[in-house]
């Protein structure tokens, strides 16, 4: 069955250009970039090219890019490095709506004696900048706040928050896994010290990511060993995937402007269409400051997993903030932080688009989706 894939915040298709660029490095070009011979040296060049491509997308210097195996590794490393390089500072600032890759790391450091402030959000998932300003003190080692939220798509005011952190002499890290490639980021003008990105969210494969560390920022490696990545991340480079990530970054830089408009248009068509056709649903998040590809809608009195499985039967792939989908028993921590009422929170569906979606696909979804909600509401004991 043809699948309408609307789960691009979970992972994306590997772009054909990316795959093509990778293949030689899974074949003949298997050299080790650290080797002294030409056979390895030509591979080292490919790694450098990728570093340049990523730096170009972000407005960074190639030296400021460290390859990692995942977004989670980037987040872990950033927080580790900040705490290790300023051991006298014992305070971490983050938010309640972070990805677990930051949230659980902060909770871990809390058990190690650190004080952690988790900033709350309002009903649209927005942070309070005054509260933020009041939180940062002389003891703060790092602020880690996501660039954009994976569940509702909110884009946070990173510029203002990073500027304030810099004024106070506090390191600022942002998990930009959902933002990179979807919205412009220019680190020449954005005073963040560290930024995490992940390959598989931008049409590169899984298992590759990068951490940006601004020149001059003290760094302590998480993975120690060989001298790779100039001693900042040991382990022989994952060359094919690094090459793929570079090409993916290049594609983002090339197509981002038009995609932002095109994908947002499709997303809006989908969102307005669903709101028009289905009574008693609401959009979660801050629709004025949102990723162009993400829509999070809650359907009253129905449960998210049931919706997902019915959509799945129709060949529509989406995700849900419902408790049942995760195996946990509580709905999404993001929706709870936003105070979304239970009768809506359990029935939340995230639809996240990509450049590969078409208007025909959206029409198909708009045709099928209302029937799913109607069916489930008909057997729900909660009416009205």
């Amino acid at each position, binding site marked *: 069955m043809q699948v309408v894939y609307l789960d691009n915040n979970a992972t994306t298709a590997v772009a054909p250009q990316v795959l093509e660029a990778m293949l030689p490095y899974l074949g003949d070009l298997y050299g080790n970039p650290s080797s002294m011979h030409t056979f390895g040296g030509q591979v080292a060049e490919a790694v450098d090219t990728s570093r340049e491509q990523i730096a170009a997308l972000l407005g960074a210097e190639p030296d400021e890019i460290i390859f990692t195996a995942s977004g989670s590794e980037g987040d872990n490393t950033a927080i580790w490095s900040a705490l290790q390089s300023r051991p006298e500072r014992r305070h971490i600032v983050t938010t309640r709506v972070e990805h677990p890759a930051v949230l659980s790391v902060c909770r871990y450091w809390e058990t190690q004696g650190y004080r952690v402030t988790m900033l709350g959000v309002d009903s649209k998932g927005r942070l309070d900048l005054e509260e933020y300003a009041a939180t940062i003190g002389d003891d703060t080692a790092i602020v880690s706040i996501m660039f954009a939220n994976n569940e509702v798509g909110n884009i946070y005011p990173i510029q203002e928050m990073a500027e304030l952190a810099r004024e106070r002499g506090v390191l600022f890290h942002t998990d930009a896994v959902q933002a990179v490639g979807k919205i412009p980021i220019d680190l020449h003008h954005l005073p963040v010290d560290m930024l995490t990105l992940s390959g598989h969210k931008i049409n590169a494969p899984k298992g590759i990511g990068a951490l940006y560390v601004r020149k001059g920022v003290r760094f302590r490696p998480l993975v120690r060993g060989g001298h790779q990545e100039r001693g900042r991340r040991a382990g022989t480079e994952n060359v094919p995937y690094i090459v793929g990530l570079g090409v993916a970054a290049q594609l983002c830089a090339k197509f981002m402007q038009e995609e932002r408009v095109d994908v947002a248009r499709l997303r809006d068509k989908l969102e307005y269409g669903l709101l028009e056709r289905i009574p008693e649903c609401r959009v979660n998040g801050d629709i004025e400051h949102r990723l162009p590809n993400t829509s999070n809608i809650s359907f009253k009195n129905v*449960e998210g997993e049931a919706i997902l499985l019915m959509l799945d*039967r129709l060949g529509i792939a989406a995700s849900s903030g419902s408790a*049942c989908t995760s*195996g946990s*028993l*509580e709905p999404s921590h993001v929706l709870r932080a936003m105070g979304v009422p239970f009768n809506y929170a359990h029935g939340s569906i995230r639809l996240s688009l990509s450049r590969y979606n078409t208007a025909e696909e959206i029409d198909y979804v708009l045709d099928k989706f209302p029937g799913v909600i109607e069916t489930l509401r008909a*057997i*729900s*004991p909660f009416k009205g």
Partner: protein
Amino acid sequence: MWNYTEAVHDHFLHPHNAGPLADANAIGEVGSLACGDALKLYLKINDKDVIEDASFETFGCASAIASSSVLTDMIKGMTVDEALKLTNKDIANALGGLPKQKMHCSVMGQEALEAAIRQWKGEPAVPHAHEEGKLVCKCFGVTDAQIIRAIRENNLKTVEEVTAYTKAGGACGECLDEIAEILAAELKQKPVKELKPRPKLTNVQRMQQVLKVIDEEIRPQLAADGGDIELIDVDGKRVVVSLHGRCSQCRSSNVTIANLVQRLLREHVEPDIVVEEA
């Protein structure tokens, strides 16, 4: 993605007996919007105590809907007494099994069935959750009695399993230590043996076995709480007992009989014994 059986998929996508039942004379409601799943079970019970018709309305995931659907199929045509013997395991088995994290859906089915029958009998409509036992999990409203029952009926060994079957401890986690204590206390008791098919008993054999179980299993447990038990009569599968000491004054002596004496006699003697208090 959950590894659901074909039966779960079938009952979820094409639920049987969905929707309210106009001439229902018993309705059981369990769960809530906050919990993430809820079931309203409708029964039509005739004057011979037979469940003539059943239907459901469910808010919840695929396994909650499938459990409700298969439950209504199972109980149609059963007498009230037969229906009361259904366990959550029976419901899960009828679906070819449920993922462990989803077992609470089958427990919800069994609880709704009990709630409906209670209503039909004219017993207080409160779900049995709040009537017996002390509240352990405040997030999902689960009592120690529910937890103990899930442990015994499903032979649970870990706190994680208790959460999967009852939801208790699945949210804030504050009660996890308490669950661990309940579990430890339960596991120290003689482990519940798997029911094996037994040969049919004669009246004399049944009487002897009932006496033996009361002496060896039940009395020592009641004695621990300062109570005692006396066998009054064995009439076919109906066992009449009298409780003494602290048990007889206890507000929840009905619970003691149902949960302890009957359970042990069913386990050790015959699976369909009914215990009554003289």
